[in-house]
């Protein structure tokens, strides 16, 4: 109880965390209730109302085929956000496995795996993802696969550090002396003791994954053009540059999501860093 009130007190000193949480919660509500919230069908074309600026009938205006932009942005949350989530979940699993094996095995294994992560990090994330998506053929699934391939490195490095630290603790020693094998140690002893920081890192990384996914889709490497996916809407909107409402709304949707996660991450770091309290 005392802990909760102290946490609440700190939260109030870091309003950006609160702001970020509210925005993320709002988007979760949108993902679940998009059909109830959207005033129109996101795919319904209404050519007589095309390229309308925001007005009373179409709150955020209409696009080049007269589709309601508000409805498209709301439905778009159902594509972009789950895509980002899938990327993060798979990243966490793969990154944890690679990092854990490297940290646990040590020696040549560790060396080889860490040099490989460094190589991947030398490539610019978005361009490597572009290359892989282009090679596989552009669609949502392949964009997600590409992001999974290029983004596991941070997770592997984080996990490796945690495992190396945990490996020397007494409870691991104890388990080993009771005859626990490597697989048992890795999954029953070390996994529960190293997974929390990785999950925290992953949950704060969702914003970045979504930014990259929207970026790929902006470059034409995601869903097909009629899809109400945010990045795709922006790229279509850019060809109607003077009709700013076409690119601004989906752009702000991406921005609000990415910034919310950055705000939360940043505030949490401040709250947990004892130096910042002074």
């Amino acid at each position, binding site marked *: 109880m005392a802990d909760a009130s102290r946490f609440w007190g700190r939260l109030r000193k870091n309003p950006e965390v609160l702001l970020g949480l509210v925005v993320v919660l709002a988007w979760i509500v949108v993902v679940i209730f998009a059909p109830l919230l959207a005033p129109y069908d996101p795919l319904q074309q209404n050519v007589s109302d095309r390229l309308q600026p925001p007005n009373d009938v179409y709150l955020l205006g209409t696009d080049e085929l007269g589709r309601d932009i508000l409805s498209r942005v709301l439905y778009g949350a159902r594509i972009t956000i789950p895509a980002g989530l899938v990327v993060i979940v798979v990243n966490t699993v793969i990154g944890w496995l690679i990092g854990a094996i490297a940290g646990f095995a040590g020696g040549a294994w560790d060396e080889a795996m860490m040099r490989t992560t460094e190589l991947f990090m030398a490539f*610019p994330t978005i361009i490597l993802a572009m290359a892989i998506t282009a*090679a596989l053929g552009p669609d949502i699934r392949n964009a997600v696969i590409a992001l999974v391939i290029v983004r596991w490195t941070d997770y592997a490095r984080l996990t490796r550090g945690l495992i190396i630290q945990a490996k020397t603790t007494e409870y691991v020693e104890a388990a080993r002396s009771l005859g626990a094998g490597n697989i048992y140690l890795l999954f029953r002893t070390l996994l529960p003791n190293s997974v929390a920081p990785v999950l925290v890192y992953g949950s704060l990384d969702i914003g970045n994954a979504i930014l990259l996914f929207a970026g790929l889709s*902006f*470059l034409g490497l995601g869903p097909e053009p009629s899809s109400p996916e945010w990045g795709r809407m922006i790229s279509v909107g850019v060809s109607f540059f003077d009709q700013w409402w076409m690119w601004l709304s989906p*752009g702000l949707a991406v921005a609000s999501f990415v*910034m919310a996660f950055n705000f939360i991450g940043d505030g949490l770091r401040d709250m947990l860093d004892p130096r910042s309290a002074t």
Partner: protein
Amino acid sequence: MPFYKYILRRFLFAIPLVLGITVIAFLIANAVPADPINANLPQNALGNERLVNAFREKWGLDEPLHIQYLVYLGNLVRGDMGESIKTRNPVASDLRQFLPATIELASFSIVVGLVMGIGFGVISAVWRRSFHDYAVRVFALIGVSFPVFLLALIGLSLFHAQLGWFSGPGRLGFLTPKPPHITGLYTIDSLLTGRWSTFRDALSHLILPSLVLGSYVAGIITRITRSSLLDVLGTDYVRTARSKGQIEPLVVMRHALSNALIPVVTMLGVLYGNLLAGAVLIEAIFAWPGIGRYAFRASTSQDFPAIMGVSMLIAFIYVVANFVVDFLYFFLDPRIRYT
């Protein structure tokens, strides 16, 4: 450690990295597409048996994988990165043509980011917990988290289309002739040849995209400068400088800042690599004819060899940039010389 030994050592570290980059690029090019011939040749060449066989021959596609890699590496060393499907030119010559524009944009952006970032970071650290500090921290948070492509669109719409403060897309206006090719950087070439109106035009086209691209760098550098300067300002030698009666601006500028900037320099190589990657979206929006827009056009037309070429080039530049940082580091941090 003497200078030559230090540099040689860093250089030897870079070699396996460069080789590794080629291995990854090779694996993606060969393992990921269902059929490398399909991915690398234009549609209308696929039916032409002679072209397909020539391609197979050139890249050793009938050989086992490790031989294929050696063939690939051999071609690469000769500067052969394959042919772009879209432009029909060798990728290497396309890259040579488009690289200077990107270098100009990225270098200008990193200067913008450094000036803004260090300036704001110093203000924020010196007047800690003041209104200025708070404002700078909000700026930094927004700078690192606001998507650059949206910033580019808003900037272009507001400062070019609405207010007309800066020139819009492209490197030069329609009527301005290109400066003679010396370095390929229009601002520098026009200065070297004394073409002032061209210089002004090139500069006014450069400002908006550099501000957008530099804002992200500025956010990061602001944060590093602030925290590192705060650490240094609490050290004994700064207290000594103050107790000698040194005036505060001199303490900050001469004693504290020179050491506080070491972490900033460390980050420069990584940031330059990030800038080149961020340039893909910015160049696409600003119609900036660099390798980023080349990659963008390649990706919309599934021009696989071209994208692979860009990604490898940027990875190499990243390695070189970090090598240059190591080089600078030797002079900035005397501790290296004595270990």
